[in-house]
């Protein structure tokens, strides 16, 4: 029953690597799920060397935010857009993509249609942050 809640996801929830509001950042974006009250803020620097998130919500959302920060660190906006597209495809179809690395841990969310939005919420916040750079 807990295929979705496997080690990688739980580890990120219990010990996120990129959580918290940084003292300095160039842009931020917000995500909120009206249905469940989940909220996330994503902060980044213009040169792409810092991506942080401040998450309040379910395990899927928090893990996705933290894994997203890993995957997008140092990437250009165009590269981030490609990763998000691959990730969206993976979590919608359940097909793993070797290029996504640890983000593949979230592909099992495809079996829980009502939760796919949890996985993509931080990415929408990141999109907004990129527009605000």
């Amino acid at each position, binding site marked *: 029953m807990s295929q979705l*809640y496997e080690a990688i996801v739980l580890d990120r929830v219990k010990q996120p690597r990129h959580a918290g509001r940084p003292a300095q950042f160039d842009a931020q974006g917000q995500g909120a799920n009206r249905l469940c*009250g989940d909220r996330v803020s994503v902060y980044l620097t213009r040169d792409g060397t810092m991506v942080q998130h401040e998450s309040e919500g379910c*395990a899927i959302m928090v893990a996705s935010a933290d894994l997203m920060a890993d995957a997008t660190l140092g990437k250009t906006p165009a590269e981030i857009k490609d990763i998000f597209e691959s990730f969206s495809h993976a979590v919608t179809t359940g097909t793993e993509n070797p290029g996504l690395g640890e983000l593949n841990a979230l592909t099992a969310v495809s079996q829980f249609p009502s939760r796919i939005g949890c996985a993509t919420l931080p990415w929408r916040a990141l999109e907004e942050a990129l527009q605000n750079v």
Partner: protein
Amino acid sequence: MSSTLDFNTAALREDFPILKQKVHGKDLVFLDSAASAQKPRAVIDAMVHVMEAQYANVHRGLHYMSEKTSDAYEEVRDKVAAFINAGSRDEIVFTRNATESINLVAYTWGRSALQPGDVIAVTEMEHHANLVPWQMLRDAHGTELRIIKITDAGEIDWNSLEETFADGRVKLLAVTQMSNVLGTYTPVERLAKFAHAHGAKILIDGCQAIVHRKIDVRATDADFFVFSGHKLYGPSGIGVLYAKAEILDVMPPFLGGGDMIASVSYAKSTWAKPPHRFEAGTPAIIETIGLGAAIDYVNAIGLPAIAAHEAALTEHALAVLANIEGLRILGTAQDRGGVISFVMKDAHAHDIATLLDRQGIAVRAGHHCAEPLMGRLGVTSTARASFALYTTREEIDALAKGLERVRKIFA
């Protein structure tokens, strides 16, 4: 078996075809009846029967089928009136659901009987359905909206109630009879006396309470009482507004159209008497007849027996949930029913719901259409288990076992 006294849950469960369904290969444990209850065979059959044997539009035809259908439809008005002990069948207005009933009152009574500056008071534990229509009335008509506080236990704060009414401007107290989040029953008789003593009317949101307790609008002295059919084992799409005859008599219509008029010309139309003044257009005929069957079903079992069964389940659930490490139940009202909201130390409500769902257990997770109450309780969402006449003790034990697994995953 799981019976309380002479309450035979196993036999009653046979009446609900859906309870035999498997979910993710597991027996369905349905603990989300407060959102919408499952339907007994009697309701399903009654609705199928209308369509197969007895269907035409109501109040229109002079032919056999229309007369038969009109009779069956209007007979439900009598059943509803008796079920809540209304003084007259003409005090029963059919709507789509309780939300529509409250909107009807806000739109017609609110704009005609209230003046700008008059106050409507609601409590902190109202469903959005008993909050948003009053905000809309405030914004459109210039009335004021005040919020009565609740205590940490989840009961109405009587001091706050008195303060709210102190300046004599409150004209309506709109209050739930049972919180859909905390399970708290409110003392509606006492609240009605209080409102009336202060020159205000009372609207009671009976959506949750009517499923578990005998409703008597005359003993309570309710001015308005609303509920939805789908929580009472009936179909969706049918709700009820009860209002005292003298109030309905002077209320202007809500929606215009067929069936709600006395006469129509190009220059002017006049309105039918209540209740038809408030039932424009072809109503939910099949659903209304389904509601009648649901009331018959509940009456045959008896609300006192249902209440006793559910009280025993609630007591058991509160005890077993209290044993789960890190689980916190929200609300500790003295008078409470089988709606239990909880949070867990490390697991978010949505993760709880997803993990339980994989075990076949359906609970609600989220803000339960009560976002301001979530803020008052200091949470963004909760998980909620709610019980019905078909709920068993074993299902509550399955919930507890499922929650232990959730706890271990996040420990």
